[in-house]
């Protein structure tokens, strides 16, 4: 009964919404906002990896570019912060056009390396362009202006920032459900056939890349406003890696798994930081190694499989062999099942 209820879309969406609304009551509000911002970045990476079969290891470029652009707009124009965030997301999308145009020519592991390299280029540019970005000091004192409302309390700011996150998550869900998303999946599974059917493969990949960058930018903008600053860390490769880690932990190609992964990693990092443990890479790296070795379906994927198995067992108690078959069929995440390109 409960299981069947959980599988209903409106019920699941309702639970997710309630969880999002209740979050700042349960945990420290700035951390709740961090989770939401990172969730957008992780979902953006999963949109590309899980549905486009493209592992971007350079999404820090879009997250960071948006964080800086948002910060600059808010600092220098005094416009309300939603305008700044939208401006940041647009800047990220604009940057994604040339980077995506060059990167989608490659796939598989090459795509990961090239996006990583381009993101590092953005990092160097941000680092060198001191007059605008503040170099190693970053952008400090980014205001949180919204029509004179007092949002200095992170608890209230959470609810001001949340609509952006929900909008972004809804957009991601719409994208993967749309005909465009279906074509993207078909390209992921068999690029040659999709091309033979007349789909301009590279153009679809580029559009997915730009949309994904815009989502990452939305997250980066919310993050910059929430923290009141943008720093070099936002454009560094560890940020890209952390986003990928969230996706793998949640489960590739599950979209909501990425949100779960973001929640776990952000909470863990916060816990380690409060405990005074600075070398978080030891812990997160070890978790990452373990997931890749033993737990490739991730939290969401495993949970879904368990749910499916439970339902199958209920429906046909006699045929227990059935659910094993399901597991085998999804053993290799469809996203990266094919030794694509290479």
């Amino acid at each position, binding site marked *: 009964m409960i299981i069947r209820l959980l599988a209903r879309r409106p019920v699941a969406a309702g639970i997710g919404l309630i969880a999002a609304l209740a979050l700042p009551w349960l945990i420290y509000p700035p951390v709740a906002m961090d989770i939401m911002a990172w969730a957008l970045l992780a979902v953006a990476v999963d949109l590309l990896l899980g549905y486009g079969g493209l592992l971007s290891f350079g999404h820090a470029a879009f997250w960071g570019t948006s964080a800086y652009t948002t910060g600059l707009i808010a600092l220098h124009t005094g416009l309300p912060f939603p305008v700044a965030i939208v401006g940041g997301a647009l800047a990220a999308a604009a940057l994604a056009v040339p980077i995506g145009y*060059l990167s989608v*020519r490659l796939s*598989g592991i090459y795509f990961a390396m090239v996006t990583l390299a381009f993101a590092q280029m953005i990092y*160097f540019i941000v680092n060198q362009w001191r007059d605008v970005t503040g170099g190693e000091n970053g952008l400090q004192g980014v205001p949180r202006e919204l029509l004179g409302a007092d949002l200095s309390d992170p608890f209230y700011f959470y609810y001001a920032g949340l609509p952006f996150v929900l909008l972004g998550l809804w957009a991601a869900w719409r994208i993967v459900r749309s005909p465009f998303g279906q074509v993207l999946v078909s390209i992921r599974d068999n690029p040659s056939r999709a091309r033979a059917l007349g789909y301009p493969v590279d153009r679809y990949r580029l559009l997915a890349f730009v949309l994904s960058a815009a989502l990452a930018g939305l997250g980066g903008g919310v993050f910059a406003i929430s923290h009141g600053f943008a720093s070099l860390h936002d454009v560094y490769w560890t940020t890209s890696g952390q986003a*990928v880690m969230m996706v*793998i932990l949640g489960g590739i190609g599950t979209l909501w798994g990425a949100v779960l992964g973001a929640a776990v990693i952000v909470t863990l990092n916060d816990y380690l930081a409060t405990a005074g443990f600075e070398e978080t890479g*030891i812990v997160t790296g070890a978790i990452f190694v373990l997931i890749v070795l033993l737990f490739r379906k991730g939290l969401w994927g495993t949970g879904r499989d368990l749910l499916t198995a439970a339902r199958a067992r209920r429906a046909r108690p006699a045929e227990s062999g059935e659910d094993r078959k399901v597991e085998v069929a999804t053993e290799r995440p469809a996203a990266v099942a094919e030794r*694509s390109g*290479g």
Partner: protein
Amino acid sequence: MIEQAFNGLVGGAFYALLALGLAVIFGMLGVVNFAHGAFYMLGAFGAFILLDSFGIGFWAALVIVPVLLGLVGMALERLLIRRLSGLDPLYGFLLTFGLALILQDLVRRQYGVQSQQYARPELLGGTLNLGLFDYPAYQVFVLALSAVVCGAVWLLLTRTKIGMIVRASTEKPELTRALGIDVSRWVTPVFGFGIALAGLAGVLAAPMRAINPLMGGDLIIVVFAVVVIGGLGSVFGSVAAGFLIGLVSALGNLYVPALSQTLVFILMAAVLLWRPAGLFGRQEGLT
């Protein structure tokens, strides 16, 4: 100008050694080793620790550290990376990314982020007269040694039986197996060898670069760009691109200093536009 070109070649020597190891590992295992930079960093720290704690000098470190790291690499291949064989190569990339984070932060926990110093070996402390200008002898040594190592690996791959087996396993693993050669036997040593090359580069870097836990992470990303420029499948291309990129960035630095760090990525973009498989890569098989 010529001196700057020399600086570029020395920088390129490090790219070449790292790119060579990456290319050999990728060829044999199909894994792009993100932890390569971390092993380079461990190489430099290895030399530092040997001198600092055991009083073992540069020349011994030049042998001991690569051998030890090569063994560590072989163990890692056996224990972890082997478990991913047959899966999408992206998983290998992700696994080694996790390893890189662990190694980097383990060293950071022990030594902090401030840089350590390592004195040049006495024998190479002075400068060498190269006709037109004086040049630090140590840098000349680095350039010469890495050129010799790259050349030796090239000969090993093209002129010996071992090299023949490795190349055959790289290009057509099934066929090689069918001819009665145990391909899997060569996977672990080749991985260890690639790691040893990274360790060697690290030891060479110790006397001339700042030794800190983050030295490998940034470098390896530049090496990725170098490898994309050269063509990832191509061992020769990776090495050639390594020296070439070193040279071009140094000369670029001379004329347009603002571009010194970004030039390699701009070159990568140009190569992607013009020859997506890299300068020396085979253009087939790209989607």
